[in-house]
């Protein structure tokens, strides 16, 4: 079977993703993981892993540098990448929400200022409801923006909600539930059909065993 390159999102998702892949028979030796190498092979030699920033996973997959990728749905919604998403992996569960100081009304004719790391998702979400918003793209610590007066509300990812509470914010709306997805390059899906189908099958078996109930909602 042809060799597959799999892009894995670094950070939040990485450990869980590697654990899931290992259970599906794609394991990386601990020496490899301990090293700082960003491209490593699995023990069978049939897979190569590359570790990249979450937002870059769809980029590597869409360009065919990686055949497959493991990345959160939140990232896919923002990237609008043209990739196949045949499998929900049930790990890395979180929510994409609108959050605001509790006393802030979000309706009316006023133009809302929204700080976010997800400008496209934000524009789509408010656009669908006919609201005009000024989007303020930030690259981190978005929760502090309303407190400092930069924005009226934020669109961000929430796992436990603790950061929001600590910064005086409450969830106003849930835009989307998100878990990790297996994504696949369109050409690889055809040209490496056998290897890709095998990967999907063995991963879906593991996911089914874990009895992962998908409870995502469509934005």
């Amino acid at each position, binding site marked *: 079977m042809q060799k597959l390159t799999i892009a894995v999102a670094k950070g939040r998702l990485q450990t869980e993703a590697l654990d899931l892949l290992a259970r599906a028979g794609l394991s990386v030796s601990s020496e490899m993981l301990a090293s700082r190498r960003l491209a490593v092979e699995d023990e069978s030699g049939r897979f190569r892993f590359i570790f990249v920033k979450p937002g870059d996973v769809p980029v590597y997959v*869409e360009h*065919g540098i990686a055949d497959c990728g493991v990345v959160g749905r939140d990232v896919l919604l923002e990237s609008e990448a043209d990739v196949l998403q045949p499998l929900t992996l049930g790990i890395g569960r979180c929510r994409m929400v609108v959050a605001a100081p509790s006393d802030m009304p979000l309706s009316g004719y006023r133009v809302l200022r929204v700080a976010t790391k997800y400008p496209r998702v934000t524009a789509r979400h408010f656009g669908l409801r006919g609201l005009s918003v000024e989007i303020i793209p930030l690259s981190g610590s978005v929760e502090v923006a309303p407190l400092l007066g930069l924005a009226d509300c934020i669109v961000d990812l929430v796992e436990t909600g603790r950061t929001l509470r600590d910064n005086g914010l409450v969830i106003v709306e849930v835009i989307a539930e998100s878990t990790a997805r297996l994504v696949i390059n369109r050409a690889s899906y055809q040209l490496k059909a056998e290897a890709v189908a095998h990967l999907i099958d063995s991963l879906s078996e593991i996911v089914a065993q874990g009895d992962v109930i998908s409870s995502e909602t469509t934005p």
Partner: protein
Amino acid sequence: MSEPLSKIPNGTRYYFAREARTRRSVEQIVMSVFDGWSYEEITTPTVDYYSLFEHGMGRSQAHRAFRFTDTDGRLLALRPDVTSGVARAAVTIFADRDRPLRLCYAAPVFRQQPQSHVEWRRESTQTGCELIGSNTSVADMEVLAVASEILQNLGLGHNYQITVNDVGIFKGIATHQSLDEVSRDEMRQLVDSRNAADLERFLAQHGFAPEDRCALTQLTRLSGKRETLERARRLIPNAGSREALDRLDSLWSMIESLDLADRFEIDLGDVARLDYYTGLTFNIYVNGAAARIGNGGRYDGLTAAFGKAEPAVGFVLDLDALTTVLLGLDVDTRLPKESERQMALVTNSDPTLLFCEARKKRAEGERVLIKL
């Protein structure tokens, strides 16, 4: 603020030397195959009425064109595809010709918005063919045979895969339910990105019957050879889809009997452009390209917008993407060899003698380089 003059617009590029030569050779090989199957070359206007493309490609595709206005205020566009112009020509200037009509082309097309992050070019060269006036599966097979000969002749014989589908299968299930245009397209996108999880949720929300939900989510994973058709038959109960499955079945039998089954695959989840195609659809993938390098199918509604509905089938290849692949792949192509490009240095202090010598060598077919 003035821009530096060195800049060239996003999505455009230069072709030079070996790349430019390769691109020209690819075009020649492709066009000679078309000629070999009796397709006549046609060139459509580079600048045309925007409404042509709106009718020919559908609004969602046409709006990607560069647009500007004519002196009388009518909206013009730089040609974003060639097929629209060919379809109009077929029912106007070729109205009295015998059918079927076989036409081919190679020309640059322009798109203000690129298709995806990978297909970044805003100017690209399309080459393709149209077979107009026949609705048989033999006509479908003819264009597939032409496409496969082109790939073979380019030296990609072991490096390509053509996926085939019939959009009637999906339409048969989808039209079961009354969905508005936006929801229909959302559903199509979910199937097209093989997103079974979100599709399942969408179908439940829109009140699809359990057997249709099951059929549609399974459709996203149905690909392979003949066994795919058998699996689909067990899953899909409605008459419209069955009819499309039968069409695909007879096409697959031809593919098998021509020993092409290795290079072809059935992919029932390919529903990229439902508003456009009416029967067969296919995508061409080659090793070394991250996205498809060609696609085609049957569009029996195409010429209706220009006055007369005629069955039509055809395909288009991205000549620039093919060139990039051929330059990068280590295969024995039929392209001219670079090693054969030697030149004869001509030197003489007397200009008359210099040019006499050069012209003599040119007459002998040599490639000359004058020392200045």
